[in-house]
């Protein structure tokens, strides 16, 4: 079973090709060009250099969010476009879950965190136990402060991952003695994690059609507060 996975949810772009659990290839770029210009050339290079025909792909996987507004739309739209004419199923992967799959074998809590600007983050927590990944929280949007408070409830080692890992580590290192910042080579999301999460999703029969594939946006606390104020003002 071949899985083509892409990630455009934040500033890097990557694509990975997984065949029966083995990584055949991965392409990763972290440059200042927009994903709309880089994603298709890297997918095409990945397929051609690995001698794979796009028709042989069984599952198209994508990080559908949370993440950058334009980023998740580019990724989701591209995967819709590739899978639809072939009638192949899609794996709609949470960016945060893909990050948990990118972490190496290590027992503890994975705190996947993305910078949503203005001291807010997208986050989810996962427990790693003997190679199994168990989701502890839903994907959520919250302030860095609120996250620190929640992390205070865990005594295990907490591994930060994602593009918000650095700012959170700075904010938490003096408050939380069990916080750990992994080295840069595994700190950020890669499409390999997306592909692994997709394999698991296929096993559990949770794939969707290209029609059903949708980007996922989380409303930030700042936006929520504004909305409440506006509604209160209208009363």
């Amino acid at each position: 079973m071949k899985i083509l996975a892409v990630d455009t949810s934040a500033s890097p772009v990557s694509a990975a090709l997984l065949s029966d659990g083995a990584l055949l290839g991965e392409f990763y770029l972290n440059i200042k060009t927009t994903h709309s210009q880089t994603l298709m050339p890297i997918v095409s290079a990945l397929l051609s250099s690995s001698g794979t025909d796009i028709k042989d792909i069984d599952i198209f996987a994508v990080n559908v969010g949370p993440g950058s507004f334009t980023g998740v739309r580019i990724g989701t739209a591209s995967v819709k476009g590739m899978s639809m004419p072939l009638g192949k199923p899609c794996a709609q992967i949470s960016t945060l879950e893909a990050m948990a799959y990118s972490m190496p074998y290590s027992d503890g809590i994975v705190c996947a965190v993305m910078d949503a600007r203005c001291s807010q983050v997208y986050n989810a927590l996962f427990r790693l136990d003997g190679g199994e990944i168990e989701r502890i929280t839903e994907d959520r949007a919250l302030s860095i402060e609120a996250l620190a408070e929640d992390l205070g409830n865990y005594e295990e080692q907490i591994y930060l991952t994602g593009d918000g890992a650095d700012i959170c580590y700075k904010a938490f290192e003096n408050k939380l003695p069990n916080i750990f910042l992994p080295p840069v080579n595994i700190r950020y999301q890669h499409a390999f994690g997306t592909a692994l999460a997709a394999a698991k999703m296929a096993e559990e029969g949770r794939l969707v059609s290209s029609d059903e594939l949708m980007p996922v946006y989380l409303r930030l606390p700042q936006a929520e507060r504004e909305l409440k104020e506006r509604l209160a003002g209208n009363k």
Partner: protein
Amino acid sequence: MKRGSILQKFITNSPEETEAVAERLAAVLGGTEIIAMFGGLGAGKTAFTRGLARGLGINDGVSSPTFALVHEYSGKFPVYHFDMYRVTSWDDLYTTGFFDYMDNGIMVIEWSENIEAFLPEEHITVTIKSLSDNEREITIEGAKKI
């Protein structure tokens, strides 16, 4: 305002002079600044942006992106020209892709009043005040000396 940031004031007497001040600001930019402009209708925000763009080697027609929300120009650096006149909430701002443009070029923002709370701490403020029909007072904060 940021610690140690200097305040620079200029008086101009025509749109051309306003453009000239902006051109001088362009000369000290590093490539990823966020320039938040304040000033009401007809203050000269678009003229200022035109001068700034020219200073960065951009001669394409610069116009206010009132309906497109953002115009992109490419010169010495990419320039993203926003008009926040109709952008009034976090959701609006997020869906313009505003946060995706950060660190990728110079962001010039008209009607910054509407999104002031969401501006990152590090930014340049340009305030244009009408003193009379043609006379303007331009205050630049947070930029290098021009």
